[in-house]
C-alpha cells in the first residue's frame, strides 16, 4: 500500500498529466505517463523484495531449529537402524529357536520309538512270553537305551536352554522400540513447533531443547555410534579390571 506522501506525489503528477493533455502537449504527456509507470514498477519490486526477505528469514529460522536438524540428520536415520536391528534380532531369535527345535524333535521322536519298542518287549517279558535269547537281546537294548537317554537328555537340556536364552530379544527390542516411540513423539512436537514458526516467525524460540544429561542409551545398535560405549563383554571386563576389579 502507498502512504500519504506517495499519494500526494501521485496527485501532483496526475494534475500535471491532465494539464498537459488539455494543452495538447503530446510529448509532455508521454513523458509524464512513462514516469508514472516507472514508479508503479518500483513499488512492485519493493513488494517482491519484501516477500523475498520474509522467505529468507523463515528459511533461516528453520535452519536455526537445532532440534529439527538433529532429528532429520541423526535421530531418524538412527531410528531406521534401530528398527532394522529389531527385525534382525527377532529374526535371529526365531531362527535360534527353530534350529534348537529342529535338533530336539528327531531326538524325542527316536526316544519315543525306542521306548515304545522296549515297553512292548518288557510287557512280554512280564507275562513270560520272552525266550532266553529274546531276553538277552532286550537287556542289551535296555543298556543301550539308558546310555542313549543320558546323552540325549543332555542334548535336550542344552537345546532347551538355548531356546530360553534366545528369548532375550524381547527385552532388548522392547527397549529399542521404546526409544523409537520417544523419537516419534519428538518429531511430532517439532512439527507442531514448525507450524507455529511458519505462522509467526518471532515465536519460534527453541525453548524445548532436549538432550538432558543422564539419559540412558539402552542397547547398542550396530551402525548407531554412541560415543564412549564398549562393544563386548570382554571390553567390560577389561575396563573393570583396569579399575581394580
Amino acid at each position, binding site marked *: 500500500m502507498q502512504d500519504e506522501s506517495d499519494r500526494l506525489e501521485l496527485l501532483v503528477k496526475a494534475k500535471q498529466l491532465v494539464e498537459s493533455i488539455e494543452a495538447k502537449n503530446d510529448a509532455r504527456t508521454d513523458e509524464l505517463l512513462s514516469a508514472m509507470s516507472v514508479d508503479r514498477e518500483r513499488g512492485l519490486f519493493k513488494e517482491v523484495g519484501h516477500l523475498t526477505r520474509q522467505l529468507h528469514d523463515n528459511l533461516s529460522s528453520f535452519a536455526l531449529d537445532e532440534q529439527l536438524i538433529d532429528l532429520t540428520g541423526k535421530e531418524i536415520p538412527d531410528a531406521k537402524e534401530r528398527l532394522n536391528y529389531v527385525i534382525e534380532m527377532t529374526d535371529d531369535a526365531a531362527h535360534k529357536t527353530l534350529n534348537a527345535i529342529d535338533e530336539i524333535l528327531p531326538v524325542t521322536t527316536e526316544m519315543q520309538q525306542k521306548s515304545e519298542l522296549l515297553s512292548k518287549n518288557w510287557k512280554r517279558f512280564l507275562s513270560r512270553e520272552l525266550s532266553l535269547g529274546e531276553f538277552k537281546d532286550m537287556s542289551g537294548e535296555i543298556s543301550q537305551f539308558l546310555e542313549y537317554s543320558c546323552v540325549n537328555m543332555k542334548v535336550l537340556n542344552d537345546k532347551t536352554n538355548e531356546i530360553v536364552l534366545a528369548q532375550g530379544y524381547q*527385552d532388548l527390542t522392547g*527397549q529399542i522400540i521404546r526409544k523409537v516411540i520417544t523419537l516419534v513423539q519428538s518429531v511430532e512436537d517439532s512439527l507442531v513447533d514448525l507450524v507455529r514458526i511458519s505462522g509467526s516467525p518471532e515465536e519460534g524460540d527453541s525453548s524445548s531443547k532436549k538432550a538432558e544429561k543422564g539419559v540412558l*542409551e*539402552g542397547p547398542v545398535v550396530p551402525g548407531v555410534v554412541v560415543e564412549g560405549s564398549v562393544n563386548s563383554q570382554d571390553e*567390560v571386563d577389561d575396563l573393570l579390571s583396569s579399575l581394580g576389579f
Partner: protein
Amino acid sequence: MKILVVDDFSTMRRIVKNLLRELGFTNLDEADDGQTAWPKLKAGGYDFLVTDWNMPGMTGIELLKTVRANPETANMPVLMVTAEQKREQIIEAAQAGVNGYIIKPFTAATLKEKIDKIFARSAG
C-alpha cells in the same frame, strides 16, 4: 542362597531365573524395578542381587547405591545385567560398588563365570 532378580521385562527375569536354576540356585525371587525390590531386600533374607539398570521408578544404579548405603545390605554381592554399555556408566557402577557387570545379550557361560568369580572372591 536366596537370590533376588530385578528387571522390568518379565521375559528377562524368566531367562535369568532359568539360567540361575540351571546353575543350581533354586531359591529365587523377582521384582520389576528398584522400588519394588528395595522393600524386599530391606526385609532381609537375600544373599545375592541380580539387577538390570534401566527400569522405571527406581533404576538399578539407584538400587545399588541404596543397597550399599544401608548397613544391613551394604555387603550384599550385586551383579548388574544390563544393555547399558557406556564406559562412564560401567565406571559409575564400579564406583557405586557393583560386584559384576554383564551386558545384554549375554550367554549362560558369562553368567556362570561372573557368579563364580563373585562367590570365589567373597569366600576368599
